């Protein structure tokens, strides 16, 4: 099975609002696939259609190679899902919730007795498992939400904003957990608005805006596809007009702008031209204090894409 998730022309409308518009999404098996988009882009709506909580108005969904139908629960037996800020029944204790959900997954008593304490330990809730969920903090509920998503030893895990509500240590732990799950061959589909989180853990990314998938692939592939956005920022001591002219003369350079001791150099290529630029500065008598690439990060790609989308629609 090449793809864990496949959608074709997936569409969801709320009255006249098209929340998801002919979305084609392919998530390769074994990858950590980030699903990025601004608020209201259609991420959660898409995920809810993948889980079967919302009925698509058009298109099709395949999960783990099987076509998804309305109220066909068996397909979810190998899928773990953690909703955005999971709301869990407050009248249950942590351990009771996992035990009951385990029963709903059809797990045997032995499996539950083995898996439930392991997961509670994994998410850092050991010692609080017999407390009512109503007494848990938001971060603890988030951790329990993650534990219930991993209960059934899933082949596909769908995480909707998994770091929301977690403290910085918790965020790092979640990222490590995601990487560990992926190393076991589990496919992770991760929706997040935290670009650095996606950048750190994801191998593939789909960027969605206004219900439309704008781009999909590895971060490198996407960056290469989006030409003309790479730039170099360099801080120079003994910055003179001669230095600027020397940099401007380089064939890879499109434009140079000065801001005090800093130069922002737009490149014609997406190749790393930092060494050429450094040499040109040094040759003209300037001293490079710091030099960095801009336009390579996911954040740059994301913002660039949204800007282009805005211009296209204007």
């Amino acid at each position, binding site marked *: 099975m090449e793809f864990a998730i496949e959608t074709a022309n997936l569409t969801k409308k*709320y009255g006249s609002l098209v929340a998801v518009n002919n979305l084609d999404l392919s998530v390769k098996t074994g990858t950590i696939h980030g699903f990025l988009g601004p608020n209201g882009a259609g991420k959660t*709506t898409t995920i*809810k259609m993948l*889980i*079967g*909580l*919302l*009925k698509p108005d058009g298109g099709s969904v395949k999960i783990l190679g099987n076509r998804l139908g309305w*109220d066909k*629960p*068996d*397909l*979810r*037996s190998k899928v773990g*899902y953690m*909703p955005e800020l*999971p*709301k*869990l*029944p*407050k*009248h*249950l204790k942590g351990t*009771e919730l996992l035990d*009951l*959900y385990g*029963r*709903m*997954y*059809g797990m045997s008593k032995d499996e539950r007795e083995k898996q439930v304490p392991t997961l509670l330990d994994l998410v850092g809730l050991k010692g609080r498992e017999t407390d009512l969920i109503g007494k848990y903090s938001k971060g603890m509920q988030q951790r329990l*939400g993650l534990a*219930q998503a991993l209960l059934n030893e899933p082949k596909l895990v769908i995480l909707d904003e998994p770091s929301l509500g977690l403290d910085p240590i918790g965020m790092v732990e979640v990222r490590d957990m995601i990487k560990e799950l992926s190393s076991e061959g589990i496919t992770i589909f991760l929706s997040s608005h935290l670009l650095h989180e996606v950048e750190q853990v994801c191998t593939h990314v789909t960027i969605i805006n206004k219900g439309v998938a704008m781009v999909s692939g590895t971060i490198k592939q996407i960056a290469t596809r989006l030409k003309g956005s790479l730039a170099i920022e360099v801080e120079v001591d003994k910055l003179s007009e001669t230095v600027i002219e020397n940099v401007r003369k380089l064939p890879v350079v499109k434009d140079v702008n000065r801001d005090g001791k800093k130069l922002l150099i737009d490149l014609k290529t997406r190749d790393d031209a930092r060494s050429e630029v450094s040499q040109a500065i040094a040759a003209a008598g300037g001293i490079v204090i710091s030099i960095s690439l801009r336009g390579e990060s996911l954040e740059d790609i994301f913002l660039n894409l949204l800007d282009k989308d805005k211009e296209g629609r204007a």
Partner: protein
Amino acid sequence: MDITRFDRVGKFLAVVRYEILWNVRKKKFLGMIIVAFALATLSLAGGHIVSAITGDPVKLDPNFVIDSNVGLGGFGFFLFAIVTVMNTISGEFESGTIVSLLAKPVSRTTVFFGKLFAAFLTLLVTYCFLIVYMAIGGSVIYGPQSNLHLVPLSLIGAVFSTLVWISIVLLLGSTFKSSLIAALGALGIWFGTNIIGSILGMLAGQGWILTYIPGSGNTGYVDGLPQVGILVSTGTDSIGPNLINYILHPSWNVTYYKINIGGPTPGQGSWEQLYQEPLSTVISTSIVVSLIYFIAFVAISWYLFRRAQIAE
């Protein structure tokens, strides 16, 4: 039993367990249990209260337990229905817990009927405790009780009566996805059918309509005019007592009357006989009416729940 069926039963029981834990840990349910036992205690203490006021000794009543309708009666059944299921569907939507629940490999049908079955079990156990309490208390206060073997009929009737209200609360909850609307809407229906309906029925002579709607139903009398006869309610709330009366007095006929305001003497009303029917007809009609409402409302609720889109 094959593996798949075993699996389905296991999932169904998981939902039942999930719901029962919710029911018994709800503060309002625990409050209702306290109120129910307080009402039952009040009912048991009634003889002593009258005795203290009149100075007469407490009258022995061998039929106290079987006449008590689980010590609750119509409004008690209605309140139990509300506290048991007002959150069953709508509460899951309001709290957002429906998202995690329906993301599990359990069909919506299993979730819906698992929750309904849990409500049934919760009521059955609660009413069992109430009946045992009434039987022991009644025997101590009102002397040896007769026909205690018919008490299970009272239990069945009470559960049946409550299930009708449960189906109404479920329907409102599934439609509006709001516990408040489910509770207030059901309360409105209860007032409409029991109080306003009864008054209009009695005065307009159209009380038979009440036989076909949930609640206390029409009021008829056996062995004489209203002042001296035995009162019989025909509604879905009175299935238990009517079943017991039918077993004990299968030949009873129920007579219905209308009040004519402004009788022969100024300022007094008079009773006009309308029609008569056997108690067997009363009981079979109320059971059929209960079943029709229960099946129809549950079916609509189930349909709405299966179709519900979880957008929030």
